[in-house]
């Protein structure tokens, strides 16, 4: 039993990493918005999904005009990801402006409900645009990076099996890491990043320090949403098939990741995302082996949600978060 | 006789001491003031007594029984009620309902009784409403009984908070800056009310206040906190002339010069 688990481990790590970085970048979107507004932006999963669809649209247009065959795939990819993240960035800003800003002083329950509303709205709008154009809302895109790479992990340790992946995995991984590092730099080293942190700490004081709070919140939404949209493109590149409902469940899992890492904490969200991705993949691959067939891979989502509940109960501040004491 | 005894009460947030070794003995039916500059740890002290925060060490005794480790609602049941520095009313409830909520722990009615309209429950509810109305009359809000609490003026909200707190029939009433934001006329009425509560309702009152005029006029005894530590205690006149207190309020230079 243990031999089997060890044998699949390299492959599980590779796959878990793929899913994990997707979760991580989406989780950052949640964490940034939560950190600054204390709002779970339920629609963030849908922004991710919109990014995937916008990316696919651009890709299909590029390939229909014959652009793809004339330039290297990586260039096409960069064009796609930039367009998609700009578009979703503005989408996120627009959503904040229309649906969240008027409610900033309203009870949180109400804002949360609008967020759910926005998420439903986006799902259906994307659905009927896709359906109008293609007659089917499950959309497949031509793949850009298709080379298979064979990782000889068995050479490291004889018990290991080999891991196989597509070159798209490397693209996803590298782009995600670039985004994470860039974001970390942005938040910790730039003027805007400092303003964001100030607003997250104390909105009123920040506004007294001549920080334009609305602008900072807009920028936060732009950055978070652009990251989400770009992750959508990564997802599309990796899996090739998307539908309007991918954002919802993925969003919830990414949120789980954000909570696991400590919500509001950007580095925590990264670690949380990777952890959830890996655990999920591990559960899918090994649950039935571990339980001798009593519980199969179909229980892997319970695994993810159970982690969420357990974390919230025993360490509500998350792995890297700080406990907040409510002021009375 | 002391109603409330606090011994060596300490609260640490992370590495920060919010309260250090505070000792107090509060006499029955007295009015005690806790004063100190901003951030002296006065509200933290109240929060520990009402179990909102758990003390890091030390003990709180109400009539000889320890309150440490209890839940906030249990503390209320034991006989301590409070108001809040930043008013915490039930905004969407009516003024009368706010007072009724204050009676929660001694109101003899349960949901089974409510479902089947049992006479006992009905009787208890009726009496509670009448009592609540009288309380509103007492604090001067009877005309507004059906208004939502959130619609009241600032001063009225403060008084409603007091009415709600005494509805819990406390032995000790903690008032957290009751006069904050009041004009002199309102403050005067508040002073009367506090005096009256002590004499008519047989309540021991502990209050945090920045209005020194009010404090000096009303208190039997004063404790002064600074940086989480108790720096002085005594009768109003003693405190007025205590150099450490003046230093705490006005800075070191003030004492040297004076």
């Amino acid at each position: 039993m243990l031999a089997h688990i060890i044998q699949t481990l390299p492959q599980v790590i590779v796959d878990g990493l793929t899913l994990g970085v997707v979760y991580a970048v989406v989780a950052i979107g949640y964490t940034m918005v939560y950190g600054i507004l204390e709002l779970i932006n339920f629609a963030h999963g849908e922004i991710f999904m919109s990014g995937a669809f916008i990316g696919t649209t651009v890709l299909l247009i590029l390939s229909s005009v014959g652009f793809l065959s004339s330039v290297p795939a990586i260039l096409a990819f960069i064009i796609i990801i930039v367009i998609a993240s700009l578009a979703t960035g503005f989408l996120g800003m627009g959503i904040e402006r229309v649906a969240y800003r008027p409610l900033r002083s309203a009870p949180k329950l109400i804002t949360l409900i609008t967020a759910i509303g926005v998420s439903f709205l986006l799902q259906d709008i994307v659905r009927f645009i896709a359906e109008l154009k293609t007659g089917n809302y499950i959309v497949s895109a031509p793949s850009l990076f298709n080379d298979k790479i064979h990782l000889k992990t068995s050479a490291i340790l004889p018990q290991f099996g080999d891991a196989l992946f597509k070159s798209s995995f490397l693209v996803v991984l590298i782009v995600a890491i670039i985004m994470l590092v860039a974001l970390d730099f942005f938040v910790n080293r730039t003027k805007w990043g400092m303003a964001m942190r100030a607003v997250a700490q104390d909105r009123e004081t920040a506004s007294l320090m001549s920080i334009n709070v609305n602008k900072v919140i807009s920028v936060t939404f732009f950055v978070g949403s652009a990251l989400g949209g770009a992750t959508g493109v990564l997802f599309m590149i990796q899996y090739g098939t998307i539908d309007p409902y991918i954002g919802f469940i993925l969003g919830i899992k990414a949120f789980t990741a954000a909570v696991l890492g400590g919500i509001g904490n950007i580095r925590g969200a990264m670690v949380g995302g990777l952890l959830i991705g890996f655990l999920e993949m591990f559960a899918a691959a090994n649950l039935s082996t571990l339980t001798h067939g009593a519980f199969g891979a179909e229980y892997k989502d319970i695994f993810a949600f159970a982690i969420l509940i357990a974390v919230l109960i025993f360490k509500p501040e998350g792995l890297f978060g700080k406990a907040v004491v409510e002021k009375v | 006789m002391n109603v409330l005894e606090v011994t060596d009460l300490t609260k640490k947030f992370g590495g920060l001491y919010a309260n250090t070794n505070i000792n107090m003995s509060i006499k029955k039916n007295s009015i005690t003031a806790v004063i100190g500059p901003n951030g002296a740890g006065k509200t933290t002290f109240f929060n520990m007594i009402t179990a909102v925060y758990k003390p890091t060490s030390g003990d709180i005794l109400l009539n000889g029984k320890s309150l440490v480790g209890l839940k906030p609602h249990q503390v209320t049941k034991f006989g301590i009620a409070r108001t809040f520095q930043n008013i915490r009313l039930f905004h969407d409830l009516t003024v009368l309902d706010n007072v009724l909520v204050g009676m929660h722990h001694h109101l003899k009615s349960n949901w089974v009784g409510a479902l089947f309209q049992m006479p006992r429950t009905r009787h208890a509810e009726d009496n509670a409403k009448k009592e609540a109305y009288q309380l509103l009359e007492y604090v001067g809000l009877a005309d507004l009984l059906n208004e939502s609490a959130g619609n009241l003026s600032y001063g009225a909200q403060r008084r409603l908070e007091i009415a709600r707190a005494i509805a819990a029939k406390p032995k000790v009433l903690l008032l957290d800056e009751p006069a904050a934001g009041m004009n002199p006329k309102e403050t005067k009425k508040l002073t009367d009310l506090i005096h009256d509560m002590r004499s008519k309702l047989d309540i021991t009152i502990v209050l945090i206040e920045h209005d020194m005029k009010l404090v000096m006029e009303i208190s039997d005894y004063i404790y002064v906190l600074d940086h989480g530590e108790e720096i002085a205690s005594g009768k109003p006149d003693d405190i007025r002339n205590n150099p450490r207190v003046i230093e705490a309020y006005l800075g070191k230079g003030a004492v040297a010069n004076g």
Partner: protein
Amino acid sequence: MRKLVDLFSQNKKAQLLLFIVYVAVTSLSLILAQQSVVAFLLLLFSILLLYFLKLNTKAKWIIGLLIVAVLIPFSASQGQAYESYMDVATLVGIYCAMALGLNIVVGFAGLLDLGFIAFFAVGAYTYGIFASAQASKFLHFGHFPLSGESFWIFILIGGIVAAIFGILLGIPVLRVKGDYLAIVTLGFGEIIRIIFNNLDHPINITNGSMGIASIAPPKIFGIVIANASQFYYVALAILLVVIYIVTRLEHSKIGRAWKAIRDNEIAGQAMGIPLVKTKLTAFAIGASFSGMMGVVFAAKQTYVDATSFTLLESTTVLVMVLLGGMGSVPGVILGAAVVTILNLQVLTEVSNWLNQLNTNGVISVPDALSPAKMQRFIFGLLLILFALYRPKGLIPAKNQKYDANKLKKSTTKSMYVEPQVSNDKKASGGSEI
């Protein structure tokens, strides 16, 4: 004109007369027209009109009951679409009770629960398992399926089991607050659904994704209840009980405690309200309504599987509460009715109508835009619009008003003998608002 309106709003008799005419016309048209959704909806609408009439509560209740229990079934039974109308009406009843349950949790106690449908599932499976041969697959005693007579006990059992689940869910979950609570309950709802969908091994309890078929229909005095028109009365009866319980609880000590912790948790605790116990009661009572209706649902469908209990369903119930008005019992009932009818009848009818026009070549609407598919779009839009422009819903919650005169004539002796500072209360209280 304005005067006329004013006059009319004061004149009880004129209102009543107009109301009777309205009811008579709509029910007649429902009787005469072979199949008219419009007439049916207009007749249902009379309940809402009744709510706004200037009559005393008792009279309203009697008239309302007459309309709901006698007039509507009678008028509808004259046409072909009887069972169809009654099916919709039954579902309206089921959703009303559920929405009222959720209203306790969200509207009164202020706890956002996004996994509420789980309790409905619990109720449905409780009856489904024992009223079909399913139970014999894991219990090696007793004879299953139980007979249809057991249905009546199962309404209670379903409620209790759901309440137990509510408490089990509540104990861990209530340690988290606000937004977190929403996410955790959402996760919990999904977990329950996944478990029901997977529990065919190691022990076959729910028959997994194959669902439980051939659930025994309820029986009473030897009569088998199998038609929607009969289930209508079952649902109606339970709904009435639920309404009774909710209104009673709302104005009791526990109701005040729920609203108090909703408005301010810390002050609520400081006033002696035990937080966990109060929240758990809200969860348990809300869940039990849902569980009871789950039993009815399982019996009506004769089939349960996990696909009926998705997140979309939880959100649907939430939309009902929000649309109607959080914390407002009449509002929530209206919200539940509007959403259910919109979903089951109106969207389908409009789609069919569009489709007819399409096939006849009158207009050309692409399939992707068919209203029946727009459920999420419509819900999303409703949620946003209502949250932005009407956060208190169609019929906002109202506080119970007390009669000062009744309270003044006090016979009991109070400890607060004479009012001291109330002499110039005008100056200090009222005038500053």
